[in-house]
């Protein structure tokens, strides 16, 4: 158990405002120190207190400590050791801590509400510990339950949510089937406009070539940046173009690109963005 004097410098002064995350964490740490070693949750927070002492009290340190507390609390809840929305109250047993706190009470409560805080000045000296610490612990509520523990819901609400989840799943399945059907339809239309050689290329290589005058283009399966001007000398892409209609399946995009290139190359090059 760390000594109280080592903890005090990193504890903040609190007001009645909602605390920012780091301040929340500091509150957790303070509670951790207050928790007795005879209660399991206290063990966790004691570890964290030690960690906080051994490391500079940066936002990252505090955040990691907060995560540790929250995860461990979650484990305890899932193991049935502590109950959500209930308070753990016990007296401290550590001698050093007794001197410092002197009959203080530690409270770790799970509440769906925001953290409410005490008004004690935590930078107070050891001489004022009893009053300050008691005041602090009596009023401080940790918000871990909101993070980890789903609020209790009625059977009716649970059924409603399950029905909603099922409907969502069904909707996703339906949309996926529609999307696949659209792709098949678009591919059929594309194939109906390709030569035998282009069809073979598309099937084997996922792209096809076409000539517009002397220019050789490659249209790759895709929606954007999938049209390339090919250098005849080395058969490598010379320029990449991005141009497409919106909200149509891939096959339709490729067909639209082919048709515009073949029938109005000038317009194609005017509208397309050339990436390189």
């Amino acid at each position, binding site marked *: 158990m760390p000594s109280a004097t080592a903890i005090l410098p990193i504890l903040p002064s609190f007001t009645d405002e909602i605390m920012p995350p780091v301040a929340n964490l500091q509150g957790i740490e303070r509670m951790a120190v207050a928790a007795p070693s005879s209660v399991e949750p206290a063990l966790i927070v004691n570890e964290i207190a030690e960690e906080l002492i051994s490391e500079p009290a940066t936002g990252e340190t505090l955040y990691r400590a907060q995560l540790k507390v929250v995860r461990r609390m979650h484990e305890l809840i899932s193991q049935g050791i502590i109950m959500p929305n209930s308070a753990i109250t016990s007296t401290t047993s550590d001698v050093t801590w007794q001197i410092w706190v002197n009959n203080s009470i530690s409270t770790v409560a799970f509440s769906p509400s925001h953290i409410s805080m005490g008004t004690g000045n935590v930078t107070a000296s050891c001489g004022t510990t009893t009053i300050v610490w008691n005041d602090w612990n009596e009023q401080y509520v940790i918000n871990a339950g909101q993070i980890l523990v789903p609020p209790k819901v009625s059977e009716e609400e649970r059924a409603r949510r399950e029905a909603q989840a099922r409907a969502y799943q069904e909707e996703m399945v339906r949309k996926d089937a529609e999307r696949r059907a*659209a*792709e098949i339809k678009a591919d059929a239309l594309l194939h109906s406009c390709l030569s035998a050689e282009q069809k073979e290329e598309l099937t084997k290589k996922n792209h096809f070539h076409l000539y517009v005058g002397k220019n050789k283009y490659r249209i790759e399966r895709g929606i954007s940046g999938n049209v390339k001007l090919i250098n005849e000398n080395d058969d490598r892409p010379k320029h990449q173009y991005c141009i497409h209609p919106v909200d149509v399946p891939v096959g339709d995009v490729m067909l639209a690109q082919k048709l515009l290139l073949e029938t109005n190359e000038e317009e194609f090059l005017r509208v397309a963005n050339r990436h390189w």
Partner: protein
Amino acid sequence: MNTGLERKKTMRTEVETGDSFMAIMGSAGDTKIIWNKDNPAEVENARRTFNDLLSKSYLAFKVKDDSKEGEQIREFDPSIERMILSPQMRGG
């Protein structure tokens, strides 16, 4: 994408010999509007659809079955056997 084709759900969906059609690209794949050039009602319906979509910046292409180069068109011609209409192209 709303192509304004909902009202034409009662139209024919099978292309028969001598028919013409336009394939209109959309999010669910293409929708076909079929007409027979000897059927004034079907021609009129196709023309109206064509003009509606071009006014929404669609691009229209006359294509051939043999995959030879098509042609971009801006006016409806009922004698064209096969057209493909694409939503406006944008640079990405």
